[in-house]
């Protein structure tokens, strides 16, 4: 049987279809079968062999049309395959997302304390870096902002509208600055002219001083700088939370007889004679403190210590109590809950959690860093920083820092200075 013509026909279709050899062979099988069946039938009907082949091929129709029809089918198959692939990919991605959510560290999941606190209006600060799971996303954003706030800046403006300054700083430091309604109410409007002349100050202090003229300040929330009214700075909604890893510091604090709680003065400070590590008070022990100790009523987390601090019968039973007591006596005493303020400090598993306004947090940073420096500066002890945030710098004795130059500096911090001076000279 002369199939030469038909072989050419099949080859032509293969070429037109741009099929692989395998695909071509597969299609050829059935086309050849069809042709041979038709030829056999025609021959049976009495048609000559050559004539039968010609007619059979003729009936097949134009090779180009058949190729086009096949092509349409293969395109359809490809589209279906892609659709299936896309659907599977989406399903796969969804599964990965679900698994990631399920396996994500509980700290970062929805509905965790971090979120719960955020819902209560508490913005979170920098997480303790020693914890393996890493800080929350919001805290990481905040940490980036804190790093930027530490950069030096020169702010020289003469009657420049606030909106322009905002845009310039935003661009220069890559930060988002938004105005809280309270600040706008305080007339810090877009065209409010601002005059300031500050050279080489950390951005944070430059901004605080600049905004202070307009009775405003700022907080950092999810890495965004929110400008608020100064009147609202100590509103519980604008408090910032920060955690400090104090485990090593706490282990080094020594509970001495002399460390027991002194009677609080209205200012909450008790300037004492300098010298000696951690002799934070000179007023002698409070009557009844001994009872508190004997009673053993303090819980190890220091909660009881905080709550009981101003109870005259309360004492300092643990290092946690001691750190909280000293912190609250030394840093803005009036801002703490115990003195009618809103700020709070607790110690959980050696992690000090502080909820303070921004200024308060800044002072707590400094207090802890310097305290840690002195605690560790005893002979034979290695140095290490306390602050777990990116802003922690090499500790320097307070005597070298210009205390009075700091915004919001209040006189009672002087006690710190005395302590440091005494320690530095005494040891």
């Amino acid at each position, binding site marked *: 049987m002369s199939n030469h013509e038909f072989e050419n026909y099949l080859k032509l279709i293969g070429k037109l279809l741009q099929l692989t050899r395998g695909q071509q062979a597969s299609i050829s*099988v059935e086309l050849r*079968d069809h042709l041979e069946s038709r030829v056999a039938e025609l021959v049976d009907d009495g048609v000559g062999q050559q004539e039968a082949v010609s007619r059979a091929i003729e009936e097949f129709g134009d090779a180009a049309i058949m190729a086009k*029809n*096949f092509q349409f089918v293969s395109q359809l198959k490809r589209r279906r395959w892609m659709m299936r692939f896309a659907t599977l990919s989406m399903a796969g991605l969804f599964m990965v997302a679900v698994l990631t959510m399920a396996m994500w560290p509980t700290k970062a999941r929805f509905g965790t304390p971090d979120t719960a606190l955020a819902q209560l209006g508490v913005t979170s600060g920098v997480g303790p870096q020693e914890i393996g799971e890493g800080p929350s996303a919001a805290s990481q954003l905040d940490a980036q902002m804190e790093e930027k706030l530490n950069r030096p800046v020169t702010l020289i403006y003469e009657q420049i509208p606030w909106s322009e300054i905002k845009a310039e700083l935003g661009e220069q430091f890559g930060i988002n600055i938004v105005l809280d309604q309270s600040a706008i109410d305080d007339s810090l409007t877009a065209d409010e002219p601002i005059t300031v002349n500050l050279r080489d100050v950390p951005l944070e202090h430059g901004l605080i001083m600049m905004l202070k003229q307009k009775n405003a300040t700022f907080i950092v929330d999810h890495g965004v700088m929110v400008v608020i009214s100064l009147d609202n700075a100590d509103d519980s909604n604008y408090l910032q939370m920060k955690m400090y890893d104090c485990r090593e510091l706490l282990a080094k604090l020594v509970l001495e007889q002399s460390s027991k709680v002194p009677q609080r003065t209205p200012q909450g400070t008790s300037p004492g004679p300098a010298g000696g590590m951690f002799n934070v008070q000179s007023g002698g022990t409070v009557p009844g403190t001994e009872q508190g100790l004997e009673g053993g009523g303090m819980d190890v987390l220091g909660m009881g210590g905080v709550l009981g601090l101003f109870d005259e019968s309360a004492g300092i039973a643990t290092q946690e109590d001691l750190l909280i007591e000293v912190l609250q006596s030394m840093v803005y005493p009036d801002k703490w809950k115990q003195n009618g303020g809103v700020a709070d400090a607790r110690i959980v598993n050696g992690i000090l959690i502080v909820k303070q306004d921004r200024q308060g947090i800044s002072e707590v940073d400094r207090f802890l860093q310097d305290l840690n420096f002195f605690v560790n500066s005893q002979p034979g002890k290695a140095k290490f920083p306390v602050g777990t945030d990116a802003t922690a710098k090499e500790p320097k004795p307070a005597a070298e820092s210009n205390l009075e130059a700091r915004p919001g500096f209040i006189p009672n911090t002087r006690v710190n200075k005395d302590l440091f001076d005494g320690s530095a000279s005494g040891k």
Partner: protein
Amino acid sequence: MAEKFESDLLRGSLDLMVLSVLASDPQYGYSIQKRLQEASREKVRLPAGTLYPLLHRLEADLLIRSWLDSSTGRQRKWYALTAKGKKRLTAQAAQWQQYADCMQSLIGNYLPAS
């Protein structure tokens, strides 16, 4: 030979025709073409250029399946209906019945008296 159906008329029903031919037993391309021709009294003559791409499409849609067989001495590709194909055939047949009834009532008055 009877007058063929217009291709426009056939377009929407070719799938159903092929599925119905395959409903009773497996067939190969040439036999499908023959059956359609016989069933339609020569009115439907599906050219190979249309038939084979159509079979491949139905197979891609999983309405039919195929296998190669060479027991007759000649390599031949057989096609049979899948379960999905059977379902599709039943559903489409019902739809076509309704369609035919609808057409009948619409055009009944204009049919030449036989």
